[in-house]
């Protein structure tokens, strides 16, 4: 079995400036909150939406003399994430302090991993359509603490601080500048989110800020990027700006597009892009500078003396690797190869692991393609109409849907009846086979009964019979009449054959 499908590289996005064509070069830092019940260096809970300042240990509040102790589970989650991105796991890593003052940073420093991250180089395949994908290199993944939340709009004179989030573990996943357009950037984040959810290392909830991205954007003239690729020398590329804290795929695309055009205008005007940090204002649809050079932080990174270097064993890493689930690329390839699905359908079904699991249960003992059609068209469509329900809340279980499909395959019901049956199961529940039996929905395959019905239609319509003998295409009219007469339950195949035989065509 192929582990992954072969693909072509997408064309980079080109923007036509007033004078030249320009290409985009994008690198991303994705901040993913580690799925863990406790914080990175304390036992405090990470539950979202708790009362302000209720999930705070002494060390989170930076009380005097309090010390951080690493949460082994968070380390395992980072390793798991690295393995999922085919990345090198560093058996020895270390924590550093990033120093700056802010009220929601009680220690006055964030514990992070600047010099020795836990995960090294890896890669992610970003699908851009059937047969087209971008391979994005991962530079590193490191563990760090999240900050708390400052609240400025509760009181005219005071600010408030909520430390619930302080010290929650984040993974910062840093890519190489391999992303070549706004759509690719959004697809990269979507792929990242998919992978993390498959791995169970981040819930991917962008609305709550559990997954957010800093986007580095620069522009260059066509041909320059290829020079960079050959030499890995960044001087071939333009000066980049970092757009901070993006938590929507749509805004990521808009921000990149705006930022690229802004840089192009500067460059074509003979100016130079300042390397700086910018924020995207979604209301105005523009990016703006976050702080001037004078305000730029000097983070004074240095090794955190409260923590020993983090040493893990290869055996422990191997144990984690042994528990990795089948990941999206492999699953998609398997769906294409084993079930004969189109790459598109396989992509839709593997987007969320819950969908893929559901599909596989439906497909058990059934035709894969038929199962895929039913899941994608009927079930997804119905769920969407039903207040955009999640598949995990589907009123139809995979076993029930599988049962419906089995009845079609057996010839017990027609496709049309199957849709009625599906609706009954969806709204009322119950075993599909029993419903079919109890409500007399089974299609009539008794040739005697069908023959009688055909005879009746022929007898009632002598003129039509004559016409049909001249023009055999009219046989379809008879079939329709028979179906009508039998309430749609007659087996269409049998009706066709009998009609043709009786008409002698």
């Amino acid at each position, binding site marked *: 079995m192929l582990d992954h499908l072969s693909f072509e590289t997408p064309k980079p996005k080109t923007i036509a400036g007033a004078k030249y064509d320009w290409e985009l070069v994008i690198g991303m830092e994705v901040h993913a909150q580690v799925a863990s019940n406790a914080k990175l260096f304390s036992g405090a809970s990470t539950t979202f939406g708790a009362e302000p300042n209720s999930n705070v240990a*002494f060390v989170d*509040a*930076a*009380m*005097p*003399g*309090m*010390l*951080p*102790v*690493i949460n082994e589970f968070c380390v395992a989650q980072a390793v798991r994430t690295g393995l999922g991105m085919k990345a090198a796991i560093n058996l020895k890593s270390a924590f550093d*302090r990033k*120093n700056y*003052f802010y*009220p929601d940073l*009680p*220690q*006055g*420093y964030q514990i992070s991993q600047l010099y020795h991250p836990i995960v090294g180089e890896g890669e992610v395949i970003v699908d851009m359509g059937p047969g087209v994908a971008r391979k994005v290199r991962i530079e590193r993944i490191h563990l760090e603490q999240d900050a708390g939340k400052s609240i400025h709009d509760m009181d005219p004179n005071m*600010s408030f*601080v909520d430390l619930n989030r302080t010290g929650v573990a984040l993974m910062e996943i840093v890519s190489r500048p391999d992303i070549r357009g706004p759509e690719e950037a959004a697809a990269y984040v979507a792929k990242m989110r998919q992978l993390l959810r498959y791995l169970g290392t981040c819930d991917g909830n962008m609305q709550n800020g559990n997954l957010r991205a800093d986007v580095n954007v620069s522009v260059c003239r066509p041909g320059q990027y290829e020079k960079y690729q050959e030499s890995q020398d960044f001087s071939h590329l333009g000066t980049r700006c970092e757009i901070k804290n993006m938590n929507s795929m749509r805004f990521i695309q808009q921000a990149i597009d705006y930022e690229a055009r802004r840089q192009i205008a500067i460059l074509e005007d003979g100016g130079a892009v300042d390397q700086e940090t910018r924020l995207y204002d979604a209301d105005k649809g523009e990016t703006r500078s976050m702080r001037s050079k004078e305000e730029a932080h*000097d983070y*004074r*990174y*240095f090794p955190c*003396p*409260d*923590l*020993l270097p983090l040493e893990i064993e290869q055996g422990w890493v191997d144990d984690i690797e042994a528990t990795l689930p089948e990941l999206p690329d492999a699953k998609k390839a398997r769906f294409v190869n084993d079930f004969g699905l189109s790459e598109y359908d396989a992509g839709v079904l593997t987007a969320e692991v819950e969908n893929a699991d559901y599909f596989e249960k439906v497909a058990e003992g059934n035709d894969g393609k038929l199962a895929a059609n039913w899941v994608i068209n009927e079930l997804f469509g119905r769920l969407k109409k039903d207040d955009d329900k999640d598949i995990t809340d589907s009123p139809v279980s995979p076993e029930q849907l599988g049962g419906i499909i089995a009845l079609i395959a057996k010839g017990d019901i027609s496709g049309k009846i199957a849709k009625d049956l599906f609706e009954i199961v969806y709204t009322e529940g119950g075993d599909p086979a029993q419903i079919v039996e109890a409500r007399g929905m089974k299609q009539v395959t008794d040739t005697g009964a069908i023959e009688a019905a055909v005879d009746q239609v022929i007898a009632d319509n002598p003129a039509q019979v004559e016409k049909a003998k001249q023009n055999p295409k009219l046989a379809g009219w008879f079939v329709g009449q028979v179906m009508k007469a039998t309430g749609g339950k007659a087996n269409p195949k049998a009706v066709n054959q009998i009609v043709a035989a009786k008409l002698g065509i």
Partner: protein
Amino acid sequence: MGELSKLTIAEARDKLRAGEVSSVELTRDCLAEIDGADALGAFVHKTPEIALERAAAADARIKAGEAPDMCGIPVGIKDLFCTKGVASQAASAILEGFTPEYESTVSQNLADDGAVMLGKLNMDEFAMGSSNETSTYGNAVNPWKVDDRDLTPGGSSGGSASAVAADLCLAATGTDTGGSIRQPAAFVGITGLKPTYGRCSRWGVVAFASSLDQAGPMTKSVRDAAIMLQSMAGHDPKDSTSADLALPDFEAALTGDIRGKRIGIPAEYRMDGMPDEIEALWAEGRKMLQDAGAEIVDISLPHTKYALPAYYVVAPAEASSNLARYDGVRYGHRATLAAGDGIEQMYEKTRAQGFGPEVQRRVMIGTYVLSAGFYDAYYNRARKVRALIKKDFEDVFAAGIDAILTPATPSAAFGLGEMADADPVQMYLNDVFTVTVNLAGLPGIAVPTGLDKSGLPLGLQLIGKPWAEDEMLNTAYVLERAAGFVSKPSKWW
């Protein structure tokens, strides 16, 4: 009164077990001494209620038998240790009013063994200083005097030193980042032990320089140091730098037999301009150990001269980061703000008011040496020097040296205020013999072995192999017995 407070831990333990004295009696005696000793400025928060309550509990435990060695022993706790429900402010105005909801592991270990906390002891602000003059409480005073001059008890554990030397308590906790246990111990004629880095938990001890800080006992004898260390030390999962090693029986190691031990004498500790008295003291120490059957070996620790500069880069760097949390947001002092002041003004005013000049100086030095463009030239270079200093020690230990003998301080105690106008570096020179031990993470002990010509105590330092406090204590015990130091300051307070 005052007779019981003069006891050593070992003596008191035996009397308690024999039923000759109760912990409540011992404690009352100490409390009375403390109340009469305000002039020493040693105790800055007194906790008589807690003390008597614990003493009564200790008496019950002793009566029931099986009480640990420290049970019923009245001790003082340095203000750097967080003590639950008792003011703990690291002698800084910025922690004004701070009362922790938790107890440091070391003070908890002592309490668990039944030790009786008498109160909190003065110190230099955030343990930054060598004279106890940077304290927000005002300085502690050395019980020893010359010509009626007030002398420093040393620092930063000046209050601990003063209290033990003046017999206000039987022993005290100290902390040592660059010599803060050993230098004051030497200045007041008591024993001060800094354990191997990682031997005592740092959890709940206000951090100065995390990679150097170690808690340790300050006692009236080497045996007491062994007994108290036994209680203070041990693995703590709450401190990632705490060593998961079994503790040897420190007191049992005091055999007095050091025959065949090889004692190194480092050439580099013979400083230019070192007083003859210190030189003579050192020579006597060598002789004492030799007479006890040890072999004296001349050794070289070639990077010693870089230790002080490296220390005064690494320690302030860590301090500048460790002290960032004192920002007025959550606890301690917060400056009154003027109309229009924002968060930056709150930080600036709070920290300008809350930190004394020496702390501010070190925060600024530390910020500077970590800043972009200077990191490699200062911090990184200092780290490399530190590694070389550590290697110096590893090399001599690998060559068969069992312990190293040096002077503890370059002089006897100096007068309070004497250094007020001096270059801060003059004050830093007090640590010249002690900082190497912290940089290398080794155990060190200061033992009083003589008096200078004006009658002030002087001490020698022994440096041990990592995790070999037991051996080091035994060598110190030999030195103590041979020196026979029994002098006490005459009571003037």
